[in-house]
Every structure is written in structure tokens, then in C-alpha cells.
């Protein structure tokens, strides 16, 4: 079952021709409309007319999260602000978020992508879809929501935070599909299991994303809930969820290639790697109006196969993610950079720069603990003084990254000192 058979099954020749045409137009447009892109191309003497098709893609300079930060908030937008109908934002590496903008056409394109993904999971207009991603600046909630509505499914905007209500409505409404992070769904499945409600559900499909998960976890969700679980991928810079998704064969995630051209590069040499090899995933958007991105480095490590899939789709597939080429963490679906945590800590009066971020998964939910050394300068002879310090640190972190962290005060020199680059993160989750 396809949502858009023409685009999802066209021959490689046709697809390449379409990509080339769209790429040429995109490059011309960003050169004209976005000073930052023009400056980058001028710096290496590259003219828009030098790009004649996808074969010339590697001539273009890369775009990174730093470019988005340097042009905060709207500097990379390629349309006047009055054509932007929506903005979202995600974590930047420092206090400034990464802001993305969409035109009305972009929102429709995004809905189309999510519709293709949901169709891969067997979702149709007859389904009742609970969207249990966070709504708001995060792209997950609204992205999945618009896609489900685009299909014509009955869409329930659950959001996150009230599992009991979600479970009750799942049963009462006879919800047949859910979109949320995989760890949240696993948690939901445990709650349902404990309540003995699994047999009373009509749930049959899930589209999960926004964080890495293992095949083992996917199968566990399928077993727990007796459903089909699919992996949906996206990142706000490129669009949001819906850039790629796996079909019923679960042999990689089909990329919406008519909108996004993927490449795999070596994170060290920045040269494209041989087909099938693992490297950093790079995307060029070729239909987006609001925020077109040229060779955006996702920092996600994966590989691509162009072999035709058993499902009949001809679009290339990215394999399960093998990690990141930077230190970004994904905690409860939220992107967190250790540098943000550091910035928050240093903003609290008297906090030492020695800290350790501990991430773990307990009962299928991510936990975040930050150990901070108590040094002579700011500790107190009273418990309430230390408690207020923990609270102040917790608030600063919450404001910076939007997540509640458990703050643990530890003795000086407890946190290991490293000779080279300081190790600030211990991630005990086994996600890859």
C-alpha cells in the first residue's frame, strides 16, 4: 500500500532527473535569496550554474547547526517573513535554539511525507490515531498530527504527560494507531500490561521516532502490544518527522527522495563514502521554501542502500542509526547538548565546572541525573543551604534544556578528571 505510488516507486532514472531539476532550482534560489549561502558559495568560487544536477552535489559547501545559530533566528530563511506560517525550534549547542520556518506549501509537503510514512505502517483514513509526542516548539506533535489529518484519519492530539488519560482514551475511543517516542510506547505498553488491558484494545500500528531505538526494542513493543511498530525519522532542521520511515519489511527507512537528497560522508574527511558504507548522513532539501538546506550535516551515523525493496518502493533506505558524530544526546525525545548543561551550570552562582551527566533508562523511560561537585566556595553548613543549591541548579538546567534533571551534589574531585577532553557524559542506555 502506497500513499503516493508515483513518487515512491518511480525508476532511479526518473527520480535522478527530478532531483537534478529541483536541486538546480534550489541552489539558484538560495544563492539569490540567502546571503549566507551566497557568501559560502562565493568563498569557494562556486556559481549556481556550476550545479547542473545531483552529480554536482558534492561541489556544494556543507551547512551545519552552527550556521543556523549564526543566522539566528530567521537569517537562513529564503522567503520574506510574511510567507512563513509556522516556526518550530529545537536545541542548539548553546542557549540559542535552532529555529526553523515553514511556508504553507512546506507544511503541506511535510504532511505529505508523514502521510507516506503512516501509510507504510498501514494507517488509513479509517484509523483513529493518538498523537502522543510533545506539541509545541518540538516538531514531533504537530508534524505527526498534520500527517494523520492529511490521510484523513481521526486524529487525537494527546501530547505527553498524562499516560493514564492516554490509556483510558485509547480504550474508550478504540484507537487503532499511535505516534510517539518508542521509549514512551514501551512504557505505555507496560502500563497497559499491568492493568490487563492489552486484550481490550483495538491498537494495531505505531509510528515511533524522535530518538534512536534498537530492533530488539521494536520487537518488544510489537510483542507487548500485538501491533506493528514502525520507525519514523526526521529532524527539525530538515523538516521534522517524516523524512524517512520503514515499511512492513523493516529493512531500512525509505527516504522521501523527491524532497530530500541524502548523502553519506566520512565525518573526518567529509568526502562521500562508497555505497553501503557507514558515515554521517547529510541532507539537501530540494522542495522546501521557507528554510532550504544545502548539504546539512545531521551528525547521525548510518548507511544507505539503493536496492529495490521487497515492498516495491524504489526510494533509497537508510539503515538503523549507529550513533552520532557529535556529543548530542536524545533524552525523552529532546535533543540535549552537554554544552547546554554546562552553560546552565555556570550560570548558577558558585557552581564548579566539574559535572557529569548520567543518562539511563529505568522502566523504559529516560532518566537524567547531573552530578555537581560541591566545593568549599559554595557549600553550606546547613542542609537547607545545600538543598536550595540543588533546586537552583535544577531550575537553571530545566530552563536551558526543557527537561527536569535530578541534581546530585557530590564531593570535590569525585568526578574523574581526564587528561585530554573532559568526559562529561555517561550514557548507560543501550540504544545502538
Amino acid at each position, binding site marked *: 500500500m502506497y500513499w503516493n505510488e508515483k513518487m515512491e516507486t518511480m525508476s532511479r532514472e526518473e527520480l535522478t532527473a527530478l532531483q537534478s531539476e529541483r536541486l538546480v532550482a534550489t541552489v539558484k534560489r538560495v544563492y539569490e535569496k540567502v546571503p549566507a549561502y551566497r557568501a559560502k558559495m562565493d568563498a569557494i568560487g562556486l556559481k549556481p550554474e556550476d550545479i547542473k544536477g545531483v552529480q554536482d552535489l558534492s561541489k556544494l559547501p556543507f551547512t551545519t547547526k552552527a550556521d543556523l545559530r549564526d543566522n539566528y533566528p530567521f537569517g537562513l530563511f529564503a522567503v520574506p517573513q510574511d510567507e512563513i506560517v509556522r516556526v518550530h525550534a529545537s536545541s542548539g549547542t548553546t542557549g540559542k535554539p535552532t529555529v526553523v520556518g515553514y511556508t504553507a506549501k512546506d507544511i503541506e509537503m511535510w504532511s505529505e511525507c508523514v502521510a507516506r510514512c503512516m501509510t507504510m505502517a498501514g494507517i488509513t483514513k479509517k484509523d483513529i490515531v493518538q498523537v502522543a509526542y510533545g506539541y509545541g516548539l518540538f516538531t514531533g506533535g504537530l508534524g505527526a498530527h498534520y500527517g494523520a489529518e492529511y490521510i484523513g484519519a481521526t486524529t487525537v492530539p494527546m501530547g505527553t504527560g498524562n499516560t493514564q488519560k492516554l490509556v483510558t482514551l485509547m480504550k474508550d475511543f478504540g484507537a487503532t494507531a499511535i505516534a510517539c517516542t518508542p521509549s514512551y510506547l514501551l512504557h505505555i505498553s507496560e502500563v497497559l500490561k499491568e492493568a490487563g488491558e492489552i486484550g481490550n484494545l483495538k491498537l494495531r500500528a505505531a509510528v515511533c521516532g524522535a530518538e534512536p531505538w534498537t530492533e530488539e526494542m521494536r520487537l518488544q513493543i510489537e510483542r507487548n502490544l500485538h501491533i506493528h511498530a514502525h520507525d519514523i525519522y526526521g529532524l527539525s532542521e530538515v523538516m521534522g518527522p517524516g523524512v524517512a520511515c520503514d515499511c512492513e519489511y523493516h529493512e531500512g527507512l525509505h527516504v522521501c527522495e523527491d524532497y530530500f537528497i541524502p548523502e553519506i560522508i566520512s565525518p573526518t574527511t567529509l568526502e562521500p563514502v562508497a555505497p553501503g558504507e557507514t558515515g554521517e548522513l547529510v541532507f539537501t532539501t530540494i522542495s522546501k521554501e521557507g528554510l532550504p538546506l544545502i548539504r546539512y550535516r545531521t551528525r547521525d551515523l548510518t548507511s544507505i542502500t539503493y536496492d529495490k525493496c521487497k515492498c516495491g518502493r524504489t526510494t533509497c533506505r537508510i539503515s538503523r542509526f549507529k550513533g552520532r558524530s557529535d556529543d548530542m544526546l536524545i533524552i525523552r525525545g529532546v535533543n540535549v547538548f552537554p554544552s547546554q548543561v554546562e552553560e546552565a551550570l555556570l550560570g548558577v552562582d558558585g557552581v564548579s565546572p566539574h559535572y557529569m551527566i548520567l543518562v539511563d533508562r529505568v522502566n523504559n523511560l529516560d532518566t537524567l541525573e547531573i552530578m555537581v561537585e560541591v566545593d568549599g566556595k559554595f557549600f553550606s553548613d546547613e*542542609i537547607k543551604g*545545600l538543598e536550595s543549591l540543588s533546586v537552583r541548579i535544577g531550575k537553571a538546567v530545566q530552563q536551558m534544556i526543557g527537561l527536569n534533571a535530578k541534581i546530585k551534589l557530590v564531593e*570535590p574531585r*569525585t568526578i574523574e578528571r581526564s587528561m585530554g577532553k573532559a568526559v562529561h557524559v555517561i550514557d548507560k542506555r543501550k540504544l545502538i
Partner: protein
Amino acid sequence: MQAKQLSVFIENREGRLDEVLAVVAKANVNILSLSLADTSEYGLLRLIVSDPAKADAALRANGFSSMLTDVLVVRLDNKVGSLQAFLSEISKTEINLEYMYGLTIEKEGKASLVIKASDLKKASEILLSSGAELLTAEDIAKL
């Protein structure tokens, strides 16, 4: 009339208390009293010692977070109602008692108490005017 208390931050880990005490012993400092305030993750060890500055320096040199805090050490008659008599004088004022604990060394049928109050100066004046005996750092060093 104030005395110095040594406050040490320790994590709730096996053997940590022992390590603190070992450092203090190695510095040849005698512990006269000790109170441990604990939470689920860490504790605050409060010590009255024969030489607070020396113990503080030794602990810091060994990587502990320690600090010196001003406290009052009141000597009371070891009899019914003597503690209440003094504290009721303080409770008539705006002064808050942050914490208190007993001093274990006793002499001549007296008991001593370590007090940390929000206004130590005022608290000491009240105690002295009501006839209390306050121990100084020098007194404590001689205990």
C-alpha cells in the same frame, strides 16, 4: 564568645565518614563532639575539635569540602530544666535556632551544647545575660 565548628560535606558512601575521621586523627586533632545531618544522598558532618583550623586545612588538602562555621557552645548545669530555661530566653526573640547538638565532654556535672543560631551575636548576649557560661575556642582546645 564564639567557637568554631568544622562542617564537612560527605556523600552517603561506604567508608566516607571513616576517611574524614582518619584525616582528622592523622592531623592529631581531637574530636570533642560530632553531629551528622543526613539526606538520602549526602550528609553534613559537624565537628567540634581541639584545633578547627588545623583540621580544616588537613581535610581540604585531602580533597574534602570543609568550612569553619561560628557557633556558640553553652555550658549548662546537668539538671532538669536548665536547657529549657536558656532556650526560652532565645525563643522570646526573632532569633532562629538553625541546629544544635550536645558536646560529649562533661566536667564538674555540667553538660555542654553546641548551638547555631541565625543571629549568633544576639543569641550569645541573651545567653550571657541570663547567666549562661559560653565556651571559647581556647576553652575547647583545653578540653
